[in-house]
C-alpha cells in the first residue's frame, strides 16, 4: 500500500512538472520571443555544454551565441507537425554547432560519444509521445531515402557501407576527424562532387593520415562527409552523437 501511495505521489509530481513546462505556442510569437528565450537559457546552455564537453561562459564562448541563434531559428521554423518543440530545437542547436565546428578552422578534436543513460532533466520533462515519435520517424525515413539515393550516385549501397564500416572506436573517431576536415575544404568537396571519388592525395596532406586508412574506409568517409555537409540531413546528423573531445585524444 505504501509503495502504491509513493507511486501515486510521484505521478502527481511529474504531471505538475509537465504542466509547468507545458509548451504554449503563443510564446513563439515574435513579441514574446525575447522573454521566451530568456526563460530557456538554461536549456540552451545545458545542450551546448553537453556537446562541447566543457564549462562555458555566456560572455566568452562563441558556441553559446551560435546556440542562441540556432534556438531563435528553431522558434521561427517550428510548427506543430514537427513534434515536440524542445526535441526540435535541440536538433537545430546541435546541427548549428556541428556546422560551426566544421567551418571553424582551428576546431578541436571531435569524437563519437558512447555514454548513454544519463537522461536529462529536460528530456524527462518533455517526454515524447507516440505520435511525435511517428512524425520523427517519418522525417528520418525521408532523409534516409534521400541519403541512399545520394549514396547510389557514388556507387555505394547500404550493404557495402555496413560491411565496410569500422567497429573500433578509435578508428571511428579518427575517420570522423578526417571527414570533418575534408568537409571544411571546398576543393575536396568539389572534387568529390564532380568526380564522385575521394582525392586521396589531398586528404593525406590535409589530415596527415595513412594512405591505407583512407583507402580502406573510403566508403565510410564518403558517407560521413555527405551526412555532414548536406543541410537536409537534420535528423541523421543530430542522431550522431558528435562531441568535442580533448585535443590529446
Amino acid at each position, binding site marked *: 500500500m505504501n509503495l502504491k501511495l509513493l507511486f501515486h505521489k510521484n505521478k502527481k509530481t511529474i504531471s505538475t512538472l509537465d504542466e509547468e513546462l507545458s509548451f504554449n505556442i503563443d510564446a513563439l510569437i515574435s513579441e514574446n520571443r525575447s522573454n521566451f528565450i530568456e526563460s530557456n537559457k538554461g536549456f540552451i546552455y545545458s545542450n551546448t555544454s553537453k556537446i562541447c564537453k566543457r564549462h562555458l561562459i555566456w560572455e566568452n564562448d562563441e558556441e553559446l551565441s551560435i546556440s542562441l541563434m540556432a534556438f531563435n531559428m528553431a522558434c521561427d521554423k517550428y510548427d506543430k507537425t514537427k513534434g515536440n518543440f524542445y526535441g526540435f530545437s535541440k536538433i537545430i542547436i546541435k546541427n548549428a554547432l556541428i556546422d560551426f565546428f566544421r567551418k571553424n578552422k582551428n576546431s578541436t578534436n571531435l569524437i563519437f*560519444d558512447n555514454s548513454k543513460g544519463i537522461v536529462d532533466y529536460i528530456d524527462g520533462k518533455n517526454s515524447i509521445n507516440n505520435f511525435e515519435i511517428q512524425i520523427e*520517424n*517519418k522525417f528520418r525515413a525521408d532523409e534516409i531515402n534521400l541519403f541512399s539515393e545520394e549514396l547510389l550516385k557514388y556507387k555505394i549501397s*547500404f550493404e557495402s557501407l555496413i560491411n565496410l*564500416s569500422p567497429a573500433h572506436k578509435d578508428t571511428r573517431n579518427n575517420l570522423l576527424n578526417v571527414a570533418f576536415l575534408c568537409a571544411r575544404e571546398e576543393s575536396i568537396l568539389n572534387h568529390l562532387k564532380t568526380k564522385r571519388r575521394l582525392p586521396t592525395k589531398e586528404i593525406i596532406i590535409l589530415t596527415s593520415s595513412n594512405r591505407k586508412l583512407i583507402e580502406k574506409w573510403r566508403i565510410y568517409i564518403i558517407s560521413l562527409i555527405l551526412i555532414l555537409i548536406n543541410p537536409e540531413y537534420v535528423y541523421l546528423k543530430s542522431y550522431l552523437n558528435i562531441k568535442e573531445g580533448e585535443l590529446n585524444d
Partner: protein
Amino acid sequence: MIKKGIVMCIMNKKAGIMTDSGEFVYIKISKVFPKVGEIHTGELYNKSLFNYKYALTAASLMFILISSSFAQAYYSPVTTIVMSNPSVSLKANRWNKIISFKALNSNGSLILTNIKLKNKSIDDGLELLVKEAKAENFINDEYVNDKKIISIDIKGNKDNSIDISSFKNIIDSNNLNIIINASSSNNKKIDITVNNKKIDTSTLNRNSNKEASTNKNKDIKKDILKKPSVEINTKKTENKSSENKDNDKTIKSKDNKNKEDGTSEDKNSNNNSSTIRRTITSNEIKSNFQDNENKNVKISENHSYEIEEKDNTDKNSDDNKHPQTSDNAFNKFIKDFNN
C-alpha cells in the same frame, strides 16, 4: 551485444542501422518488425551466421559420404561360407555379419525359409542353421550314426578372424562330425577362434585347399601354396583316422628358393592320451618328393580328434624356426577341444 540506432535498410532477418556512435551494423530482427527511419534496438547480427549455412551443408555432405562409405563397406562380402548338407552358402562382411544367404539345394532352401540370418554374426548364423536343421529333422540320430560330415568351407579375401564358440558348443552337444576348411586368396589370413583361442592360423590358398581337403591322395604342385586343413571330428572316428593315416599324402615341392634349408625334424611328442607325430621336412627333401609337414594328432578318448596339417615351409618359415611353439599351439588346441 545490443545495438540501438536508426534503421537504414531492412533485409530478410536483419536490419542495417546507424548507431549514435557512427557505426553501421546489422542487427537481428526479433518480434517487432522495424520500419526505415525508426530507432530500433536489437541484438548484433552475427557474421558467423553466414558461415553456419555452409558449415551445415558441408557437415551434411560429410555425413552422407561417411554413411554411404560405411554402408558400402558393410554390404561388401568379405567372407563366403559354404555349408554342405543342408547346403547353404552365406556371405559375411568384414565385421562377420551375414549380409546374404543362399540355398544350394532343396534342403537348404527349406531351412532358410524358416530362419532369419540377416545381420546375425557368423557364429550365431551357423548355430541357428544347425538348430533349424535339427528341427527339420535333417540332422538326427541316423545322420549321426551314418557318420555324415558337415563340411564348412570358409573363403575370404581379407584378413579376418571368425569366432565360432557357440557353434562349437552346439556341435559338441549334438556329437556331430564337422570339417572346417578355411581358405583365402591373396595370402590373407583367416583366424578361426573358439573362446578367444586361435585354432588355426595360416595363409590359405583357395585352389589348393579344395584339393587338400577333398583329394587327399593327389600330389600338389609345388607353386601352389599349401595350407593346413583342420578336421575336427567330434565323434569317434577311429576308423576314419586310420584311413587318413593311409592317405597321408606326399607333397611334391620343387621350390628352389628354400633348398638351402637342410634341416629335417622328426618330432614325436606324447601327451597323456594323445600322440602327436609331426614331421618337418626341408625343402631339399621336399624336392625329393617328400612330405612337407605332416601332423597327425590322435586322441583316443570319448571324442577323438584328428588334426591334419600340411604346411609349406616357405609360407610358414616360423614353423621351421620354432617347431616347438607350433607344437605347443597344437596341444593347446587339442586341450581346448577336449574340454
